[in-house]
């Protein structure tokens, strides 16, 4: 499991080598999330339409090691967009990955871009 966890590393915008074409924007619920498979990774992608922004992070909950973050709930804490894990409502910043209501390790964050109504996620390999 530690190995599963170690597969997820934050990718910064300037580190992107591959823009993976995930799915049409319509496949994602408004103000909600869905999970994208890329190689052996599971990435949670969120359409935060109130902010007019898209975010992506690991689907793996660092607390329980289950693939569930895409099924969590979007929200903001003092303006910072966040995702609440559906298992115990641990919340994570979608900008930095930081755990906002506890001491859990941060989650990995990936860049997202929209082109021609398609969602692309940025990976470094």
């Amino acid at each position, binding site marked *: *499991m*530690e*190995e*599963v966890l170690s597969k997820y590393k934050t990718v910064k915008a300037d580190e992107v080598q591959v823009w993976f074409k*995930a*799915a049409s924007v319509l*496949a*994602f*619920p*408004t*103000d*909600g999330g*869905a*999970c*994208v*498979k890329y190689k*052996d990774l*599971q990435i949670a*992608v969120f359409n*935060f339409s*109130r*902010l007019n922004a898209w975010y992506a992070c690991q689907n*793996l909950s*660092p*607390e*329980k*090691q*289950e*693939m*569930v973050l895409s*099924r*969590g*709930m*979007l*929200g*903001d*804490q*003092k*303006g910072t*967009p*966040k995702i*609440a894990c*559906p*298992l115990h*409502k641990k*919340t994570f910043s979608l900008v930095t990955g930081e755990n906002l209501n506890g*001491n*859990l*390790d941060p989650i990995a964050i990936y860049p997202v871009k929209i082109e021609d109504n398609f969602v692309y996620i940025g990976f470094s390999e």
Partner: protein
Amino acid sequence: MKKVIVVGNGMVGYKFCEKFVTKEGSEKFQVTVFGEEPRPAYDRVHLSEFFENQDAKALEMAPRSWYEEHNINLITDVRITDIHRSKKTITSANEKEYAYDYLVLATGSSPFVPPIKGVEKEGVFVYRTIEDLEGMLAYAAKLKVKNPNAKAAVLGGGLLGLEAGKAVMDMGLEPHIVEFAPKLMPRQLDSRSSQVLQLKLESIGLNIHLSKATNQILGDDGYITGMEFGEDDKLDVEMLIISAGIRPRDELGKTCDLDMGVRGGIVVNNKMQTSDPYIFAIGEVALYNQMIYGLVAPGYDMAEVAASQIIGNIEVLMPAEIDMSTKLKLIGVDVASFGEPFMPASKGHSIIFENKTQHLYKRINVSLDGKSLLGGILVGDASDYNMLHQVFLNGMPIPEDPAQLILPATEGGAFGSALDLPDEAQICSCENVTKVQICGAIKDGSCEDLAGVISATKASTSCGGCKPMVTDLVTETLKSLGKTVKNVICEHFEYSRQELYGIVKAKKLTSFNEVLDACGTGHGCETCKPLVSSIFASLYNDTPNKEDVTQDTNDKFLANIQRNGTYSVVPRIAGGEVTPENLIVLGRIGKKYNLYTKITGGARIDFFGAELNDLPAIWKELIDAGFESGHAYGKSLRTVKSCVGSTWCRYGLAESISFSIELENRYKGLRSPHKIKGGVSGCIRECAEARGKDFGIIAVEGGWNLYVGGNGGATPRHAQLLAEKIDNETVIKYLDRYLVYYIQTAAPLMRTAAWLDKLEGGIEQLKKVVIEDSLNIVEDLEKEMQFLVDAYECEWKQAIENDEMKKRFSHFVNSDDRDDNLVFVPLRDQKMPKLWEKEVKEVTL
């Protein structure tokens, strides 16, 4: 830079670091910490929680990154083996040498294992570290596969032993406690309270064996099979946890010739200095006043003293008297003792209140002049512990008739307000926070609320025992400043649930964004989104399909999420009545989708382990066979349980099954602040346990008695009588009114029992509203309920018939693959999710 080395990264070693780095001048020191355990310090006091979730991270005192951020060099998995006092260095097991200017020994203690023949056998454990617990869990799991009724014993009936006994029970083994003394918790309790505790523990299923000296651990092929006490006195057990006391881990002190106690422990003075002024000892390894203190609070005080001394604040000293009051956190049983629990008659008088049938025992010891409280014991109900403890600690005056302090009739009355405590009263002993610090933080404006005070003072962040009092002080202080303590929902809405309900209703708002734009700020969160959804559901009977992204996860997927991210499936079986044909259908579906199957406490059938992708197909088959959603996932009506009543039972006075089916069908799908359960019994023998439900109906001569506000679970409450001898229509009429009134006025996640408690005037007031119509609203209440009943639709039917709605039941958006992270293991003849910690081992092997 001066070097400080801390040996031992346990609770106290960690606390030393935390205190040290916040002190002025600490930047002149380089701190290095050695820990023998593989992970950074964790909360041993709450170790037993590991059994619930196997979540080691959640117990961490601070993550590794915290040590980095504070420039502390943390070296784990390394044991220190020697101290060379003359050259001021230490060596580690891997033969490295490190120099120090100051050395702090925080090596704690280890469980004492008595030299009984056979203790080395497999299946014998101690209870101190996460690794110990992992070992026990793995062993217990193996045992249960071989023998589902396996027994396990705990050697030692003290504070820790009883906690271990509870853990054994939670692991699903038959628990036995074996104690050498003739009573439980011999160090904290007198004989009578010990007996009351024993009765209580036996009533929840612990088997207790007193006055037993274990001669030998019996075994077969190296594995434990039993314990032998005397020639014909044996107990068959397949696992044993030893909890027979602790021994300080003082070996480092011994080998370098520090002054030691005769029975172990490194001797320290009130500066926490050992006989070598450059070496300090703190926590459970330190012998202070000829005592080892096996509790965290004194350990934390020692950490503060040692940190101050090393920095140079030499006036900070350890007090001579150390408070050893304790409140046990044994789940389900309150036990506390404070001050002098036992007292010879020459020193004072004891006042004892005992009620064996309710497993209650309270004793207070009062000085001969009757003016002060010297100590006491509480078993069965320790809700007054915090206040009594404060009265004792601060030598506060007690009532002329001290019995008032413990008599049940004077609840709260004898104490007055928490604000009457002296300013310097220590409210949180773990974090050493006084009343004036808590109230001051509010008064000087630096904190606004409870959360602020907790994060500023750290009060209540360790054992948590002081939380009720901290809460009281904050609320009372706010009130005294004329600030209303407003129950706002979250940062996005400055309203209570009831207020928001009114606004949504008045403005006829129908989507979350509309509500946010109309009366909120920001973009919502996991608190307000589900709350608004629940208001919509209560007002319009909207199913979660309408706006799934604002629903709690269970509502969103119309199924309860389980610990590995799979779901459970629970079709409605109204009144628990099911035809053999339908049972066969359920069996076929369970088999086809390989679901773990169990009968629930609500008399229906629960399937577990369904993958997200399979949910629509499973539900399609159920619905085709005539089933519908059981709403087990919702804050809504669950079941109306019933006995067989006059249909079959020779005592029955009325047809309880038919009525429960009618009621369950009437209120199914009804969304509310929390779940609602009902029950119908055919006579006062009460086989349906209706009075443990939110509404309960019992047949009597001349009609039904209607009870409301009952609860089972963790805070059991008997429902209270609302109306007597009424007919079916009147029951429904009153129930409609009662339920809608509850839905409109309760706080989020508040069950009817708590709501009725909070309702001013209680049940009498409810009778006025519901029966006498004192508020002139019953017509509206009834109309509202009829609207909700008419608006009912099975949400699973909706979901499977609509492709757009069905879309969300797929693990990936760009692939039909399943979640490959899921692993199941066999459990008896079925399956269960694999435990995560075990997976770690397999992967890394």
